[in-house]
């Protein structure tokens, strides 16, 4: 498409079953009741000048430009605040209105710079457009009176400037921050002529304020007051392409606004069904990594990891790699080879990687990053409901009455959905937070959790079973729902189990450290407060009982009848952008695409016929098993696409030892990541801007990724995998990712009606999309569970084997921050480091004092597995006895400290519970020093050209 601004209807859309008919400038218009006259005019193709109105925020009625005349109504009401009425006759263009509008515009322009030709918003400015629209030709007041033209620009934010000299005090930015983002960082300070937009407290600038740089204010600004620095540097875009963000599982859609092959800015797409026109700092601004100087765009190989890299052309890299893989396969058998697909790559790319492993390598040794995040979700929800995914769409939160957030911090990790959740909470939904940390949601502007159960890390199952105990023993179970939808005998077994006194909140109080009265009150609220919706994250899954916790959550939803309609459900907040899709595409070693077990003869035969090869009927190795098998010599080659397991996976020493033991490690990535320090082949990757394909978000929504520039290294990732397959002797001939999707649809029942053509037509589709649900499935399990009857699973609390003691008295839990993403490979290479340039250790004031630590001190963080050094942040966000850090920076490598303990069912690592000691330190740990030295050595690139 060419460059056209997104349509703005002035005021938000209204949902109503009642239609109202009115006349606007002689046109008959029918709109939902409650719609503003301004919006009705826009919907019917008309245009009423306005400045303070935009359809992302409620009507404000301050600019006095959108005045209209209405037959039978006195005066000239503002059309933005006037709702339509049946039979209303509206006039938007009269002599009287023209005079009034021109007078208002004169006032605005009398205090606005007249530098349109050199202004960065020239030809993309609502003030300029409106002046033209009202026919302003002169300003009677002159320009010499008191004004704001000398106000200094605030350039503190790395991505946008605030130039108050161009501000018209329309409050759109303030209202966007309040209503869309929910941070309430901005305000209008002063009154009358002294009114000015202010970020934070007196003395703050945008960077030091509470602003989270979501960009909502920039998007709402009608002038050049709040504008992207990139626009100032590069000018107005010339075309826009709608694509999907490559950060987090929310799946925001954006317009990539381009000048030739230069990305100028990413603007949230208002028609995006996941984000509804909103964004966060990462998706909106942190895309600079795509052109970062660290990107490797030439393939590289080496015989040994002790050697420097040697740059080669694609042909040599691929033949070198294929020869190595074929030789290992011939000598050690197919099960000595494996691969890891990427949750940052497209569905089509993940599908090809698992196909290469199964059909080319000949094993089922395929895994993905879900191993370390939501594999327990796949296990738990498939056992209870029959499908490995969340039950709702994001819109569903609008109908929730009680929101239970457990083990998730949406404000930091899923910020765009968090804003929607906060909006629902501000409108009256109740909130229960179950988390060891006092996360932002517990108390933020106009939001306060009814209950914050600050449990001891590792006791999720105990808390949830105690909640079930309360619900069952107090007669709060929805027996009618259970009888109709679930297996009644299994329910009775389960209800007897949870009713046992040993599962009462009182009995478990010593274990969970949650006051029984609080837990009882929370359980009653969830069971009786109306629509109850559960949202959870890695604080649920990354435990030794991660799968049990997921099943306990499913039990709670079933026992209260909170499943199968809008406003309820079980909602895993997936971590990476396409982790749902990578799982859907058969990236687990026991499952073919569509979550069908590899041992199923019929399913396997379907793939064997289509692919023309025999498949191994036995499950393959999971990532930690691959590393174990490497150490005993039975696993020797690994193809890793778009993941950095050395930094992201637990017990770094063990990961390093496993990688080092392999004969051939192939890293296919944008950068020489930490895993590449142990690799023999580096294949340059492509960013999401450089390829076509699809991502699937946390609500099972399949959305298009569209290429806006050519791949820096010449090939999209799917093409590289295809070339590697060909080099190994496979006859693959995909000309476009749409052909890969056609194959996926052919072989995967939940995708059978998905195609690129349909995605173009529909915008997005939520699987299952098949003959039974041709338009997709926004809500699952509506009339029945996928597995038939819902299955209650007995979830006994089994304490973790990771114990605190005199040597390691504190519990470490890990997580992420808003500005960084996963291992930081992308975000560390953007201006986001302004907010977070190192991992910090959060420690409670009492624990800090006991150790003589002050805020900012260097501390040594040690566990039974390893130790690292980082700086302390003394804060009450964590409870006494608990410390917290992030894993975004390789200099810290928090996973040196985490252990091999993992979820019993899936081997998802127990990142959230590590016994540690924290002591003062005066320098990096031995490991940090030796790794830094190794890292420099391993990244050497030979100056000698390839032969």
């Amino acid at each position, binding site marked *: 498409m060419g460059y056209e601004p997104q349509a703005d209807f002035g005021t938000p859309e209204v949902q109503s079953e009642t239609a109202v008919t009115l006349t606007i400038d002689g046109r008959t218009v029918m709109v939902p009741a409650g719609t503003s006259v301004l919006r009705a005019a826009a919907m019917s193709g008309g245009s009423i000048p306005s400045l303070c109105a935009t359809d992302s925020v409620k009507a404000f009625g301050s600019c006095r430009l959108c005045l209209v005349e209405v037959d039978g109504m006195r005066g000239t009401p503002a059309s933005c605040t006037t709702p339509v009425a049946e039979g209303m006759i509206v006039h938007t263009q009269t002599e009287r209105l023209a005079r009034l509008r021109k007078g208002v515009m004169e006032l605005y322009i009398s205090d606005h710079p007249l530098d349109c030709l050199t202004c960065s918003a020239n030809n993309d400015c609502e003030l300029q457009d409106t002046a033209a629209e009202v026919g302003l030709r002169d300003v009677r007041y002159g320009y010499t009176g008191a004004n704001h033209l000398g106000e200094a620009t605030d350039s503190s934010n790395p991505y946008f400037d605030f130039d108050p000299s161009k501000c018209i005090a329309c409050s759109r930015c303030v209202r966007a921050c309040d209503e869309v983002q929910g941070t309430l960082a901005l305000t209008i300070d002063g009154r009358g002529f002294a009114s000015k937009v202010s970020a934070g407290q007196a003395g703050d600038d945008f960077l030091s304020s509470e602003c989270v740089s979501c960009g909502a204010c920039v998007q709402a600004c009608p002038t050049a007051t709040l504008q992207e620095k990139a626009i100032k540097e590069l000018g107005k875009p010339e075309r826009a392409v709608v694509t999907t963000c490559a950060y987090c599982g929310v799946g925001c859609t954006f317009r990539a606004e381009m000048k030739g092959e230069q990305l100028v800015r990413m603007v949230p797409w208002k028609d995006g069904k996941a984000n509804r026109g909103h964004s966060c700092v990462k998706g909106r601004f942190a895309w600079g990594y795509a052109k970062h100087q660290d990107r490797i765009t030439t393939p590289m190989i080496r015989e040994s990891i002790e050697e420097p890299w040697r740059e080669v052309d694609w042909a040599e890299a691929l033949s070198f790699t294929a020869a190595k893989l074929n030789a290992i396969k011939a000598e050690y058998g197919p*099960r000595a080879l494996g691969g890891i697909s990427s949750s940052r790559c497209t569905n089509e790319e993940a599908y090809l990687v698992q196909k290469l492993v199964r059909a080319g390598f000949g094993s*089922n*040794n395929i895994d993905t990053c879900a191993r370390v995040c939501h594999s327990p979700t796949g296990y738990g929800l498939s056992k209870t409901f029959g499908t490995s995914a969340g039950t709702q769409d994001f819109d569903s939160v609008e109908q929730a009455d009680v929101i239970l957030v457990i083990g998730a911090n949406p404000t930091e990790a899923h910020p765009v959905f968090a804003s929607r959740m906060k909006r629902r909470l501000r409108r009256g939904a109740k909130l229960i937070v179950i988390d060891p940390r006092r996360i932002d949601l517990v108390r933020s502007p106009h939001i306060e959790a009814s209950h914050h159960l600050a449990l001891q890390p590792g006791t999720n199952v105990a808390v949830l079973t105690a909640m079930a105990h309360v619900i069952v023993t107090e007669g709060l179970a929805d027996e009618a729902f259970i009888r109709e939808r679930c297996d009644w005998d299994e329910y009775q077994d389960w209800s007897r*189990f949870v009713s046992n006194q040993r599962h009462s909140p009182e009995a478990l109080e010593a274990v969970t450290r949650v006051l029984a009265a609080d837990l009882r009150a929370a359980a009653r609220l969830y069971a009786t407060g109306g629509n109850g919706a559960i949202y959870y994250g890695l604080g649920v899954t990354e435990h*030794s*009982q991660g799968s*049990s916790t997921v099943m306990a959550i499913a039990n709670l939803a079933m026992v209260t009848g909170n499943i199968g309609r809008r406003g309820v459900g079980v909602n895993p907040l997936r971590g990476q952008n396409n982790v749902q899709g990578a799982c859907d595409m058969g990236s687990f*070693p*026991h499952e073919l695409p569509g979550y069908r*077990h590899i*041992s199923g003869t019929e399913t396997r035969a379907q793939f064997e016929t289509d692919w023309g090869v025999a498949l191994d009927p*036995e*499950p*393959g*190795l*999971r990532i930690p*098993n691959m590393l*174990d*098998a490497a*150490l*005993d010599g*039975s696993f020797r080659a690994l193809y890793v696409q778009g993941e950095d397991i050395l930094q992201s996976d637990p017990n770094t020493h063990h990961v390093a030892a496993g990688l080092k033991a392999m004969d051939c490690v192939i890293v296919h990535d944008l950068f020489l990541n930490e895993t590449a320090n142990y690799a023999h082949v580096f294949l340059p990757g492509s960013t999401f801007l450089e390829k076509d394909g699809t991502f699937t978000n946390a609500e099972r929504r399949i959305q298009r990724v569209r290429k806006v520039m050519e791949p820096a290294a010449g090939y999209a990732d799917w093409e590289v995998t295809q070339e590697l397959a060909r080099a190994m002797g496979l006859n693959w001939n995909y000309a476009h990712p749409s052909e890969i999707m056609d194959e996926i649809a052919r072989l995967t029942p939940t995708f059978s009606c998905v195609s690129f053509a349909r995605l173009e037509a529909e915008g997005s589709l939520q699987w299952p999309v098949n003959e039974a649900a041709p338009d997709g499935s926004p809500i699952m399990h509506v009339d029945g569970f996928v597995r038939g009857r819902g299955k209650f699973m*007995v*979830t*006994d609390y*089994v304490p973790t084997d990771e114990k605190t003691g005199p040597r390691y008295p504190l519990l470490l839990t890990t997580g992420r921050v808003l500005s960084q993403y996963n291992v930081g490979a992308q975000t560390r290479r953007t201006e986001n480091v302004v907010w977070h340039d190192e991992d910090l250790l959060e420690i409670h004031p009492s624990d800090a004092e006991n150790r003589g630590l002050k805020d900012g001190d260097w501390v040594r963080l040690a566990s039974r597995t390893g130790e690292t050094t980082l700086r302390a942040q003394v804060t009450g966000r964590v409870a006494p006895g608990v410390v917290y850090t992030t894993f975004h920076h390789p200099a810290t490598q928090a996973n040196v400290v985490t252990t*091999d303990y993992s979820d*019993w*069912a*899936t*081997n998802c690592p127990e990142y959230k519970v590590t016994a540690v000691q924290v002591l003062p330190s005066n320098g990096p740990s031995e490991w940090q020093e030796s790794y830094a030295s190794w890292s420099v050595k391993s990244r050497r690139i030979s100056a000698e050209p390839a032969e």
Partner: protein
Amino acid sequence: MDFARLTYMANQIARNFAAQGDAAAALTCQHIKDYWDPRMKAAILAGERSGLDPIARAAVELLES
């Protein structure tokens, strides 16, 4: 394969199925069948079983049969 680790994994699975009563050993066995790679199964079958908890040991015996 690291036999101690496999033993730990089998015991951990068994502990989490223990609440299922009589079905625990069969469920543990099925879990190993469904999710373990052949070399892992072979190693647990071939290895010393004294470190296995009773349910896990029964599960391995079922796996063998």
